[in-house]
């Protein structure tokens, strides 16, 4: 209605008359508006409201407690653990996957036998459900002497390692499997971007006498910078939301060492009747995610300008 094109017509037609095309856009947008309001807006507002109360999830009598639940988040050991491990997982997998996926993609882009099989295989590791992969690795990382990795270590007379029953080893296991799943997936993303690098850049550099290492650092890597930005933020935002993998691999244990924010929200809100605390955690988590996406947009924009 504010469109300048409709200005001339407003003289003839009454202002309140809605044009058929505007009405059509309303009907086409209606489903997604309903979805947004019912599945996102209302629950989010409800989370914000309950985060300020001592609601336990079922008792209709509760009172407003202000920011007490938010204070709880930053003082209780279990919640701090979940915050700490989620950050540790997101940051370490971001770094490790990127460092491994880049050289893997460069290699998979070169000529060798069985190339498409190798590409598919690395990619496939990221395809099955994280929950199922977690369950498989739970068996492989069995801390018992009969565990498969401990059996292999035994061949080299290395004593068994308490994989999933030790705090730090359990964290290592979850991160390891996260990297195992994600590296091929992100190498595939890099490979797709590499196909878009103009071939004459490489031809030119050959004439100038560049070797393949120089080509990697002076052509491939700079050309891939936008993709690196995108990929790292994808890993970061995706892995902050991690739940399935640690839940099935270590069940958040031992002693909450691999507890994630998502698991903590669910535990507080459903199992432990601390709906208010769970809601406060959810609100903080939303803010963190929104901040991260804002930073991503800024960085991606800056990178785009720098390289275009």
């Amino acid at each position, binding site marked *: 209605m504010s*469109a300048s094109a409709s200005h001339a017509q407003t003289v003839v037609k009454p202002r309140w008359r809605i044009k058929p*095309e*505007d009405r*059509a*856009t*309303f009907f*086409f*947008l209606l*489903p*997604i508006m309903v*979805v947004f309001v019912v*599945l*996102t807006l209302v*629950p*989010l507002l*409800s*989370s914000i409201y309950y985060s300020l109360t001592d609601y336990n999830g079922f008792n209709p009598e509760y009172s407003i407690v202000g920011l007490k639940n938010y204070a709880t988040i930053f003082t209780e050991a279990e919640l701090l653990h979940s915050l700490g491990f989620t950050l540790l997982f997101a940051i370490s997998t971001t770094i490790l996957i990127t460092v491994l996926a880049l050289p893997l993609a460069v*290699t*998979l882009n070169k000529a*060798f*036998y069985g190339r498409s099989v*190798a590409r*598919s*295989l*690395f*990619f496939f*590791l990221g395809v*099955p*459900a994280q*929950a*199922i992969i977690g*369950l*498989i690795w739970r*068996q492989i990382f069995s801390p018992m002497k*009969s565990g*498969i990795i401990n*059996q292999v270590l035994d061949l080299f007379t290395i004593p068994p390692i308490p994989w999933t029953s030790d705090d730090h080893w359990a964290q290592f296991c979850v991160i390891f499997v996260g990297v*195992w799943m994600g590296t091929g*997936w992100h190498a595939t993303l890099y490979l*797709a971007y590499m196909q878009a690098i103009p071939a004459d850049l*490489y031809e030119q550099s*050959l004439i100038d*006498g560049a*070797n*393949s290492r120089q080509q990697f650092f002076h052509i491939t890597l700079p050309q891939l910078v936008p993709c690196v930005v*995108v*990929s790292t*933020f994808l890993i970061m935002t995706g892995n902050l*939301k991690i*739940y399935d993998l640690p*839940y*099935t691999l270590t069940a958040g244990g031992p002693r909450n060492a691999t507890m994630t924010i*998502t698991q903590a*929200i669910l535990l507080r*809100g459903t199992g432990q009747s601390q709906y208010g605390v769970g809601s406060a955690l*959810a609100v903080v*988590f*939303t803010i963190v*995610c929104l901040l991260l996406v804002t930073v991503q947009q800024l960085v*991606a924009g800056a990178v785009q300008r720098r390289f275009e």
Partner: protein
Amino acid sequence: MTESRANSLPRRILRTIVVLGLAIICAIPLYYVIVSSFKTNTEMTQHPFALPQHWDLTKYQEAIADGSIWLAFGNSIVVTFFAVILQVAVGSLAAYAMILKKNWLTVGMGAVLTIAFCIPVQSTLLPLYQMEGAIGVVNTLPGLIALYLVDSAFCYYLVVGYMRKLPMELLEAARVDGAGPFRIYWQIVLPLIRPILATVVVFQTLAVWNDFLRPSVFTTDQSKRTVVLQVYNAVDTFSTDWPLFMAITCIALAPVVVFFLFCQRYIVSGLVAGAVKG
């Protein structure tokens, strides 16, 4: 010169050995799952990496004996099918509104969806559980399907980028010929955006099929379990019988492997398109 050296036969062979060696090491867990599913518990512990002495299908027979795995497959198929169809329908309709006309509604909604897209599902799970409980759809397949509709925003993103590149003359010509907005959407726009629809459908099928978070929170009823949840529960039920668990895992993963082989191209394009949108 450099190129010919980099692609020379010895280098190529060396690279083949290194990469395929690495691929084999990475694939050991998958190999382990497959061979273990044919073994007995003792054989699995004693010779974990060996090929099974007999290709024994007992565990597979046990895995399908009570029929619960087929029920789980049925549930997963129903949930995935309806969730993806609805996501794509809602998302593509919204995208069509965006290219149909620029007005305060479409501009405003575009901004709202950008933010909505970034809100994690985790933050809304507790209230959603209460809401679904209040209307009695927890533990039902429609209740589960409804939860996946939030991903319509993702579908919208992928589709709207593609739609903006469509030749607008085609739509304009149809409009001049007297076709209404919905008819243009159904008969002209949908066929034109088939490539991106294929990408979105494949990518979202994988996402819904693989989801564990929502089924694990919203379904407790055994008869409503999806495949992933069924596998998860099998571990608790048969925690002493690992070969049986491996057989169930193989059955659960088989369709994913087939799907991957046929749709790999679309998964990649979905990955790239999703990455571009952030």
